[in-house]
C-alpha cells in the first residue's frame, strides 16, 4: 500500500462523508429542537432527489443548482407537515406517550411516502447523467471525483450557512433557546411551536438539498432512503444527539471509517467498521463526540 493509495482512501472517505454530513445535520436539528426521531427523513431526501431529477430533465437545471433551488419548496413542505401532523404529537403531555405517537407517525409517514412514490413514479430507477459524475480532478497521485467534490463543497457551504444562522441571528438564537429550555423560552416570549415548525422546515430542506447533491452521482429510486437512513442515525448519535456540529462531524466520520475500514477488512465488512466505531464512541463517550453530559453521576 503506497502513500498515494492511503491518501486516495482518506480523500474518498472525506468526500463521501461530506454528503452524509449534510444529510445528518437536518436530522440532528429536528431531534435537537423537537426531540422527535424522524424516521421519514430519508424519504424527504428521496423526494429531494426526484425533484432535482425532474428539474434537470424537464428544465435543464444543473443538479448542483437544483439542490439549492429545491430548498424553499422543501422548507415549506416541512412547515406544512409540522403544522398538519407533528404539532399533534409534540409539545406538552406525557413524554412516553408522545414518543410512541411520534415514532408511529414518522414511521407511517415514511411508509406512505415510499409506497406512494413507487405507485406514482414506478419503481424504475432513474439517474441524472452529468459529465462530472465520471470525471476526476487529478491532484498528484489522488483522483477527486468531480461530482463528489462539488457535492462536498456545497455541503460545507450549506452546513456553514446553517451554523451562522443558528449562532448569529436572533431567530437562530430563539431556535436554540427553544431547544435548550422550551419552558423558559416560552416565558421570554419565544413561540416554541413556531420554532419547532422552523426547525422541521430547515431539517427537511437540508436533507432534500443533500438528496439533490447525491443525485449528481447516485441513481434515484423510491427505496433509495433505506441505504442512508441508518447511517444518518449513526452520524447523529455519534456526533452527540442534538448537536449540529456533532452531526456534521459524525457524517464525515462515517465516510472516513467506511473508506479506511477497507484497509484492514474485506469489502463485505465495510459497514462493520462503522458500527464498531459507533460502539466505541458510545462506550468511551456516551454523550457523543460533541454532546453534553446531561446526567453525570
Amino acid at each position: 500500500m503506497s502513500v498515494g493509495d492511503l491518501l486516495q482512501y482518506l480523500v474518498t472517505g472525506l468526500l463521501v462523508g461530506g454528503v452524509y454530513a449534510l444529510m445528518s445535520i437536518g436530522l440532528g436539528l429536528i431531534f435537537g429542537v423537537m426531540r422527535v426521531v424522524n424516521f421519514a427523513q430519508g424519504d424527504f431526501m428521496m423526494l429531494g432527489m426526484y425533484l432535482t431529477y425532474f428539474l434537470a430533465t424537464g428544465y435543464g437545471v444543473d443538479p448542483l443548482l437544483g439542490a439549492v433551488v429545491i430548498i424553499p419548496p422543501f422548507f415549506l413542505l416541512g412547515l406544512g407537515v409540522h403544522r398538519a401532523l407533528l404539532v399533534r404529537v409534540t409539545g406538552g403531555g406525557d413524554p412516553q406517550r408522545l414518543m410512541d405517537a411520534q415514532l408511529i407517525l414518522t414511521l407511517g409517514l415514511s411508509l406512505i411516502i415510499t409506497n406512494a412514490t413507487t405507485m406514482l413514479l414506478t419503481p424504475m430507477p432513474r439517474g441524472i447523467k452529468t459529465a462530472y459524475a465520471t470525471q476526476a480532478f487529478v491532484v498528484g497521485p489522488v483522483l477527486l471525483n468531480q461530482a463528489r467534490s462539488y457535492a462536498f463543497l456545497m455541503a460545507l457551504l450549506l452546513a456553514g450557512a446553517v451554523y451562522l444562522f443558528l449562532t448569529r441571528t436572533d431567530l437562530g438564537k430563539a431556535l436554540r433557546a427553544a431547544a435548550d429550555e422550551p419552558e423558559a423560552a416560552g416565558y421570554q416570549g419565544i413561540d416554541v411551536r413556531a420554532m419547532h415548525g422552523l426547525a422541521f422546515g430547515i431539517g427537511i430542506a437540508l436533507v432534500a438539498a443533500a438528496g439533490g447533491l447525491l443525485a449528481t452521482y447516485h441513481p434515484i429510486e423510491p427505496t433509495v432512503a433505506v441505504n442512508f437512513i441508518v447511517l444518518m442515525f449513526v452520524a447523529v448519535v455519534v456526533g452527540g444527539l442534538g448537536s449540529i456540529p456533532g452531526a456534521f462531524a459524525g457524517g464525515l466520520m462515517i465516510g472516513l471509517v467506511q473508506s479506511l475500514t477497507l484497509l484492514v477488512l474485506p469489502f463485505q465488512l465495510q459497514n462493520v467498521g462503522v458500527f464498531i466505531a459507533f460502539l466505541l464512541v458510545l462506550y468511551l463517550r456516551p454523550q457523543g463526540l460533541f454532546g453534553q453530559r446531561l446526567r453525570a453521576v
Partner: protein
Amino acid sequence: MKSVLTVRRRITVALALTLVALVAAPTLLVPKMAPAAEELKIALVVPLSGRWARQGQLKKMGAEMAIAEINAQGGIKALGGAKIVLREADAGDSVEKAVSAAQRALSREKISAGIGSWLSSFTLGVTEVAERLEVPWFTLSYADNITERGFKYTFQSSPVSSVQAEQALELLVEIAKRNNAPLKKAAIVGDNTAATVFFFKPLREKLLKAKGIEIVVDEVWTPPLADATAIVQKLRATQPDIMFYGATNFPDSIQVLQKIKEFGVKTPIQGVGAWLVTPEYVKAVGPELLDNIKTVVAAHPLKGQDELVKRFKERTGEPFMTQDPLMSYAHVWIIKEAAERAKSTDPKAIREAVSKLDLTSGPAASTLTPGRIRYDERGRRIGAAPIIVQWQKGEPFTVAPTELATRTLVWQTK
C-alpha cells in the same frame, strides 16, 4: 296530516328499495367475478415494491402478455376454453415478505401453478411454500441449490449458476483466443446475493485455475455499496484481461461503472445476470459507458424472435425485451401446455404433466434455447444453456452462441 304520512311512506319505500339494492348488488356481481372452475389461476410472486420492484414489474409484463395471447386464442382448449388469470403477490424486499406473500397467495384460493420470485434468495424460500402446498412452481432464478433439495414441485428454467459459469467461461476463452487476446488475469467483482455467489464460487475454486487464468482482484460486498473507489483502484493497479461482474443492486452497479470510467480502466466487463441489461442503464449512464459490456443471461431475444419482441414493445412501451419478461412469458405458455395435457386445473395433475412434458414447438419452446422444453427429475430444464448479450449503441443484443446471435460480438481489448 295525510300528506305528511304519504311523504313518510314514500321515504320508507325508497329506503327499503335502496336496502334491497345494496343487499342484492353483490349477488349480482359475484357470477361475473368468479365463474367457478372455468379459470386456471397462476400465482406470480415477485418483488413489486422495494429495490427489486422493477424486475418484478418486467416479469409481470411478460406473464400478462402470454395470458392475453392465450385467452385471445380461446384459452385452454382441453378445459373447454378455460381462461387463465394472474394472481400477483408482492414479494417485497426480504425473504420473509416473499415467503408470506407466497403463503397467502397459495392458500387463499386454488392456484394451479406459480411463477417467481426473481432473486434466488427469495425463490429458495418461496419454493418451500409451493412444495409444502403441492403447487408446481416455475422460476428463472439461477442458484444451484434451488433444485438440489429433492423438491418435486420446483421447475428451474435457467441454466444454474455453476453451469452458466462453466459454459460462459468456455465461450469467452474461445472468443478471446480467436481475437488473439488470451485471458491471463481475471477480476471477480460483485455482491453476495445467492445467484452471484454460486456463479463466482466455481470460477474462484477451479474453473479459472483450470484455464490457467490468475485471479488478481476478488472483491465481494453486501449491498448497498458505499463507494466503488477501492475496487476500481485495484482494477487500475492490476489491469486484468476480464472482469466478472455481479452487482444486482442498480445503484451499486452504476457506481462501479462510473468509477471505472473516471479511473480510465479499460478492462472488458463480463456481467453475470440479466440485471445488467435493463433499459434504465441507458438513462442513468448513457450508451457510451455501456458499449461493449457483455453479460451472461438465461434468456434474451434470439435470431428470428423479432415478431415477439415487436409485440412486447408495442404492448408495454419498453425499449427492448430482456430475460425477465421472456421467461415469465415462456412459463405461462408452459403451464398452458401442461394444463392441456393434464386436462385439469389441479396443481398435482399439472405437476405430473410438466414432468412428462417435451415441447419442441409453440411459443414456449421457441422462446428459450435450445428450442425444447423438458425438465429432469430434479426440475432443471434439460439443455438450458447460457446466452451472452452485449450492449451495442444503447441496446443489448444476443452475441453468443453464434447461431442464435442477432449481432456480431465486438471484442474489446484493454
